[in-house]
Each structure stands twice: as C-alpha cells, then as structure tokens.
C-alpha cells in the first residue's frame, strides 16, 4: 500500500518554477532512520534571498529534511542519507565536509526557543566568539538584537538572564543569536509553533525583513503562515516531494490533487 502510494507521488517540479540562483540544493536526497524511509528521493532548490516554506502533515519528513540541510541529524544514531546536498559548490555530506563549518554558515532556529541559561548578551556573542570573532562585541550584540526586533525590549537588561524573557522574546533572541553569526542561510523548524498569535505575527514580520539579507527555509504546519511569508512552497507528503512551486501558485492553483486536498484542509 505504502509502496503504491510512493509511485503515485512521483516527484513533480512545477513547470513554472525556475530557481535561477539557488543558495542550496538537494539532489535525490533519501533519508532513512534504520530501515524506514523518512524522505524519499527529494530534489529541491532554495532560491537565494527568498523564503522557501516546506509544508505537509505531521510525520511527512519535513523536519527531517530541514535538519539534514545543516547536518543536525548527525546526532541521530541510525540516520543515513543518500543523494547530495549542495551548498557553496560542495556536497555537505562529502566525507571531507566539516559539519562545524557548515553550521557556522547555515544557522538554525528551532521549534522550541532554546536560549542558553546565560545572559542575553552572552547568548548573542557566544557563537561568534567561539568562532574567532574579532570585531566589537557590543556593536554586534546591538546590531543583531536590532535586526531581530528585540533591542528596544532588552537594551536595559543585556546582562539579565535570557531565561527571564517571554517565549516570544526568547525565540527572537534565538533568531538574533543565529544572525549574529552572519550565516548565508537560516533554517527555521516551525519557529512559531510554540508561540501565541501576537508573538507569531512578530516572528512573521521579522522573517519578511530578514529575507532581504538571508536565504530562509522554514518548515511550518501552518498553511496560512506559509502562504503569508514564503515565496516558494514545497509540499511533502509521506516522505515524497509532491509539489514545489511559487507559493501563490501552490495555494491558488496546485497541479496535484493531494496538494489541493491538503491546503484546503481535507486531510492533515
């Protein structure tokens, strides 16, 4: 049954999509946990300075896929990946590739805010410092917090604990921490799913601003969110990339019936 539906969902790129300048690209990426396939032969391009949303029902492999883009799945014992993930002209799964260097250049924001139990200031400066940052730390902290839209709320308590911030503030701190590294790509794994609607709106505004300087890949189970903030959308179902295209097109006139069923809420 599963096998049947896999064939059924053979990868289809939307004909109208042309990714002229990809910051990153997956080529026939298949991800397994032990024997079970989480992502099946997925080929995707992420356009530079644009927001690409990955949507799909729970368990469709979207989190697995985004975590494979900066090798955050390396810590899972029975994880294996075949295919290529191309970044800066190299396959990041090449045996010689350095995961530490990859993660310096491809930042990540997680589902649940995870600030370090240190001060706000230290949260921002820690990453750059362990990676040999030589500039003015005060300036970097200020700039990162301004860009994450958090500066006005925390400028008087930079030495206060990050744990004392609200959930929404903590998540913006995590975004500030990620952009302090000046990454080329920011991966966001359901960054607003643990937040209230108001904090969610702030994160969405922030993504809108960040796309001018960063390539963003965001996983979300919130289709309205994907429609609002992304330029391109990939729909994953059962480990297969069912459809990939310009967001407006995917949401108004999808090629595949499964996509239409999902975005109109018939399943998921």
């Amino acid at each position, binding site marked *: 049954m599963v096998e049947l539906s896999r064939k059924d969902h053979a990868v289809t790129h939307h004909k109208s999509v042309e990714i002229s300048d990809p910051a990153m690209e997956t080529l026939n990426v298949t991800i397994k946990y032990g024997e079970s396939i989480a992502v099946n032969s997925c080929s995707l391009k992420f356009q530079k300075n644009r927001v690409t949303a990955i949507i799909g029902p729970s368990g469709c492999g979207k989190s697995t896929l985004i975590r494979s883009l900066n090798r955050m799945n390396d810590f899972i014992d029975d994880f294996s990946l075949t295919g290529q993930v191309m970044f800066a002209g190299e396959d990041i799964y090449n045996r010689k590739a350095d995961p530490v260097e990859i993660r310096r*250049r491809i930042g990540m924001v997680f589902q649940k805010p995870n600030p370090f139990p240190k001060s706000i200031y230290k949260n921002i400066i820690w990453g750059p410092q362990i990676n040999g940052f030589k500039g003015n730390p005060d300036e970097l902290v200020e700039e990162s917090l301004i860009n994450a839209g958090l500066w006005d709320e925390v400028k008087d308590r930079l030495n206060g604990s990050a744990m004392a911030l609200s959930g929404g503030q903590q998540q913006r701190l995590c975004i500030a921490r990620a952009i302090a590294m000046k990454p080329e790509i920011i991966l966001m794994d359901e960054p607003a799913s643990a937040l209230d609607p108001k904090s969610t709106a702030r994160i969405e505004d922030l993504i809108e601003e960040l796309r001018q300087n960063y390539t963003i890949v965001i996983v979300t189970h919130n289709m309205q969110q994907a429609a609002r903030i992304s330029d391109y959308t990939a729909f994953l179902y059962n480990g297969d990339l069912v459809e990939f295209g310009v967001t407006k097109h995917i949401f108004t006139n999808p090629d595949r019936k499964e996509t239409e069923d999902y975005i109109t809420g018939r399943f998921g």
Partner: protein
Amino acid sequence: MTERSVVTDNKQAHIKEKVISGLLSLSALISVVTTVGIIILLLSESVSFFKEVSIIKFLFGTRWEPLLEPKSFGVLPLLSGTMLIVVGSAIIAIPMGLLTAIYLSQYASDRVRTFLKPILEILAGIPTIVYGYFALTFISPILKQVFPSTHIFNALSASIVVGIMILPMVASLCDDAIRAVPNTLKQGGYALGATPFEVITQVIIPGAFSGIMASFILAVSRAFGETMAVTLAAGATPNLTVNPLESIQTMTAYIVQVSLGDTPAGGIEYQTIFAVGALLFFVTLTMNVIANRVMHHFREVYE
C-alpha cells in the same frame, strides 16, 4: 435499572483505608524514630564526655591519646587522617567520575553504554572490606616499590581504593545531571558552529553545574564516613601529618578500634567514640544538606 446513590455507608471500606494509611505512616515513622534515637544517643553520651573535656581542647588539640596516660583528647590527628583520605579519594574520584560521565553521556555509543554502566554498578556493589584487602595486599606493595618509605598501612593506598569506591557514585550522579540538560540546548550550541568539545565544556557542563557540584559533595561526604577499607588499609596510628605514605587513623577507624577493643563501657575512654561519632555525623549531615540545596537549585534552572 436502578440508579446507585453516591452516598454510601460502607464502614468496612472506610476502616480498611484507615488501617492502610496507619500502616504506611508507621513505616515512615520508623526511620524518623531511628534518626532521632541516634541523635539523642550521640548527643547525650557526647554531653557527658564534654563535661570532662572542653570542646576547645577536643576540636583543636593536636594529640589523640585517650587510651594512654597522660590522656589527651585532641581530635585533630583523627581529623587530619580523615581529611587525607577525603582529599586523596576526591582527587581520584572527581576528575575520573566527571570524565566518565561525559564519556558515557556524550561520546559512548549505546552498545558501549549498556556494557559500561553495569560494570560501574558492580564497582559500587563490591563490599568495602574487599576494597580494604585490595589496598593492603595489592596497592600498598606497589606503592612500597615506588616509594620505599611507604608504611605497610598508609593513607595513600586507602585513599586510592576509597576513590575507586566513590567513583561510580560521582559518575552516575554527574551522568544524571548532564542528561538533565535539555537536548535542545545542545543542538542550539551545535547550530552555532560549536565543536563537540565547546558544546560540552561551555553549554552542557555549565548547564549541569549544580548537579555536578552536588555529586562531588555527596561523594566527599561518603568518603568522610567510609570505614572498613580505611580501618584495614590506613592503619591505627593517630598521626597529625600530611604525608600520605605514613600510617594514620581516621575517625571511623578509631571508633571501630574502641568498639572492638576491651575498653570498658561507661568510662571517658569509651565516651570518646560518641564525641567522635557526633562530629562525624555533624560533618556528613552538613555536607548532605548543602548537596541537597545545590541540587534543588539546579532543578529550578530549566523550569
């Protein structure tokens, strides 16, 4: 179908509940009564001891010769003997225990872990008297070859085995503390381009710091009260020294010596063991309370 009333008058069930709750509180009470009994015994015997010997002379006297004339009741030689064991064993157990915990929690594969953990537990389950033999018949002869001035009974070999003895405790408590650091924090560290070493030293260990400290204090407190191995291996010579190659006597070993000897009960010589016991109890209790406080603080961090 008739409806059952929610108002019942089931006396039997009521009595049964009462009996059960009574039995349960009784068993809880036993440990409380025992503790209180021990404290009262220690204190009352100590009080009659301190009627004859001033606390100052006891705590700061440098000669411990309660069984010889002229009698002298300065506990410092016993305390220094105990401290030699405590410091020596801590030097061994704390770094090794922490490193073992880091290895187990961060580097070891599941297979290595399932193999290593039971071995650590076996180490913790070896009777302490066996450690004493091991020190006396295996470690001391080796030490004597390395340092010819080593006494047959010496503080160093006892410290080494006490260190090995408390190592599993340090390793297992540190392992728990490290595992309590949320995985999301670790991933946050890696996602910022940190190396595994940076994540361990700068994210995980600070995150588990209070738990790690608590494990150290508990282990030291255990070494402080350790008896059989030191009685066997460290000697029976109250000796105010910092040289671990000499024979010493710990507070616990002294209590064993007097309890087993022909010291008549009731005399001042006999009462010394209660004074020493009270001091021992006070120190370990203080350390356990501190460890609990530290541990409690550490639980609050991520909530």
